[in-house]
């Protein structure tokens, strides 16, 4: 894949990718954009081996998901919900997005549950596709979705 083709694909998919990472980062826009940039550079470096089968977005999401997991693993301590609330409310995302409660509720989920829930509800992927992107079994995805949905409904009082 040439650089021009890669950039053309990215221009088409970047908004979906950033939205996915924004949900994974619980509304922290700067973090999400940094991860998106890292993921896109990784994708560019491995684009020589990419075979275009019309699944560029899934391929990109898989790289973004792995980048997110690596980023999470590199963080030594986790912040409390209160700290998260303070962080989220101080970011630019607060002004742009009304549904901060959803981001705060997403923060209570484990990263894998959060990813599955986001891919399922925000990006519209089915279980098989989510299993491919997250490199897990379909049964594991179903469990993550079920647990994640219950937790979210409880937190959001739906």
């Amino acid at each position: 894949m040439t650089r021009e083709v890669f950039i053309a694909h990215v221009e088409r998919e970047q908004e979906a990718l950033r939205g996915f990472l924004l949900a994974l980062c619980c509304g922290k826009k700067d973090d999400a954009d940094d991860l998106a940039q890292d993921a896109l550079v990784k994708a560019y470096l491995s684009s020589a081996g990419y075979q275009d089968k019309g699944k560029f977005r899934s391929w990109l999401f898989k790289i973004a998901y792995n980048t997110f997991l690596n980023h999470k693993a590199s963080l030594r301590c986790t912040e409390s919900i209160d700290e998260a609330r303070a962080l989220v409310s101080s970011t630019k995302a607060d002004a742009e997005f009304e549904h901060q409660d959803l981001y705060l509720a997403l923060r209570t989920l484990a990263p894998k549950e959060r990813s599955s829930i986001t891919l399922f509800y925000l990006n519209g992927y089915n279980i098989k596709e989510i299993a491919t992107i997250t490199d897990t079994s379909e049964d594991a995805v179903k469990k993550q979705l079920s647990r994640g949905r219950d937790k979210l409904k409880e937190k959001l009082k739906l």
Partner: protein
Amino acid sequence: MMKDKALEDLFLAQKPHFSDNAEFMAALTKRLDAVEYLKQHQEATIRRYKMLMVAAFVVGVISGAISIAYVLSTPVDVPLFTLHVETDILLWLVENSRLITATGLSLLLTFGIVSIISNVQDILRMRVCLKASGTVAQE
């Protein structure tokens, strides 16, 4: 698995729309330029490394061949080197000069071959790293 309607509506309602797409793409282009620069630099380093290795290999083969030819061309009953000191050890060295020289040359050639193999492996590893950095699999 069925979607939960309330959750789906909530997610769809919060679907973000970014107003800074142009800035994001400009930042990405800058990063890709930097990546290209580094890639070119790494490729140039590999090329230089390769040239040096080929030169070392050629010099090693030629000098090894000349040394062996010299050893073979000297008369068998004349020592290859003489030490004008008469102690037991030095005399032993002079008597076995041909064997010692042949062993030394063999060791040098073996060392040369091992270092060439090691260099080839390094180059292959560098290439794999270059290709695989940023691969889909979790690094």
